């Protein structure tokens, strides 16, 4: 999230023809970017295949958002959803079930509802689209968000944490196993400890 705003200049942030819509949707976009990246840590429950999305995807989407808002009378939600979820980010997505998922993810954030003040981005109370204000206010809001995220933030059930912990532990035990001594000791031979 912070990264989204790190290279947004004051001028750009205030300069859009539809400041309210731009600010709201920019926040939603940043949230989307963070959520799909974070989902990867939950393994297959998050994404079937962990994709390498990059800041370039975010940059492109940001610019297109600005352009569409500047040039069009009404906010083209459908076009924006298509561009961001299927073209920009979706270009990397190869699994068809993941395509459905990424569309569902963005559909939650790029919707006319986002214009309602304090629209909740997940089931949790903590994460909402803040009232449009100066850039510093948004940054302060992002800073205030908890460090430890509930999987619910990304649309997942809290149980997804179990999957994440499982994955971490099995990676850990696998590493230990590869360090296990493999030399069978013959009677009278030295144990690996003695050799070391």
């Amino acid at each position, binding site marked *: 999230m912070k990264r989204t705003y790190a290279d947004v200049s004051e001028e750009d942030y205030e300069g859009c023809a539809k400041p309210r819509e731009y600010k709201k949707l920019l926040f939603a976009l940043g949230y989307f970017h963070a959520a799909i990246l974070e989902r990867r840590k939950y393994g297959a*429950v998050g994404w079937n295949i962990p994709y390498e999305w990059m800041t370039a995807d975010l940059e492109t989407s940001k610019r297109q958002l600005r352009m569409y808002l500047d040039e069009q009378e009404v906010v083209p939600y459908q076009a924006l959803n298509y561009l961001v979820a299927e073209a920009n980010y979706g270009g990397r997505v190869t*699994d068809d*079930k993941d395509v459905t*998922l990424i569309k569902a993810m963005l559909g939650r954030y790029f919707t006319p509802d986002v214009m309602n003040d304090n629209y909740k981005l997940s089931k949790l109370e903590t994460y909402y689209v803040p009232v449009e204000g100066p850039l510093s206010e948004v940054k302060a809001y992002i800073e205030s968000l908890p460090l430890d995220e509930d999987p619910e933030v990304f649309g997942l059930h809290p*149980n*997804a944490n*179990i999957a994440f912990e499982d994955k971490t532990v099995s990676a850990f035990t696998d590493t230990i196993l590869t360090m296990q001594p493999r030399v*069978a000791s013959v009677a009278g031979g030295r144990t690996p400890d003695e050799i070391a």
Partner: protein
Amino acid sequence: MPPALDVEAAHPSTFAVAENGQPLSLGVFVGQEIDRFNKLLKVMKGTLDQLDKAIQGTVVMSMELESMASRFLDNKVPAQWEAVGYPSLKPLSSWVPDLIARVQVVTKWLLEGAPASFWVPAFFFPQGFMTAALQGYARKTTIPIDALQFRTAVKEVFADQVDEAPADGVNIHGLYLQGAKWDFGRCCVEDSDPRAPIVLFPVIWLEPVDVGENLEAGCYSCPLYKTSTRRGELSTTGHSTNFVLFLHLPTETHADYWIRRGAALLAQTDD
């Protein structure tokens, strides 16, 4: 080094492919499955014999045999077996009972005819089972198979309470639901209980219906995968190696909610 040879007790006696009077397409399917099981069991027996001899010193301990022995020590399935086996993430200690259960199911089908409800996780190639079941109906009614699809009717019971096969279509059981649970009574998918990310799913009746029917209304198109890895490669037959089919489960919330939840049916757990 403990030779893990007691697994050999798992081998059932050789079973011959016999004409069992089943509807043709499902019969062909079970024949193919039996071939696959026999191949796996043959490889298992062969490699275990070799390893036994190598431990006794009558044949040379090759690289393959040594890696097999160390896989045993790690409680993992040897690569030689995986090569001819089905996708599974189970450690060896539960892989073996799972294999025995699969072989029993297929053997029972072979000797006693089709069961009232099929344990789909038993099969190497569940996609083939689905097609065969649909084809059986297509032949019976002479409706082209392309004009048919399966409707998911969840029976609110588990397999031991089902004693009759449906007139059309098939009953299947033994699937697990990850990321959601089945709400008995309300008949829809609901959020999981805390600490229960994966639950056993009740019996499903796959009912063949016309392809024009919209099954997605009010339903979440839940993907069914063989293992929890979910990802799979496209095989030459156009099937994913992991994805089987979409089952349409009724929901009271928007389907997108379950998509974001990552809810999916799995044919087996990892443990």
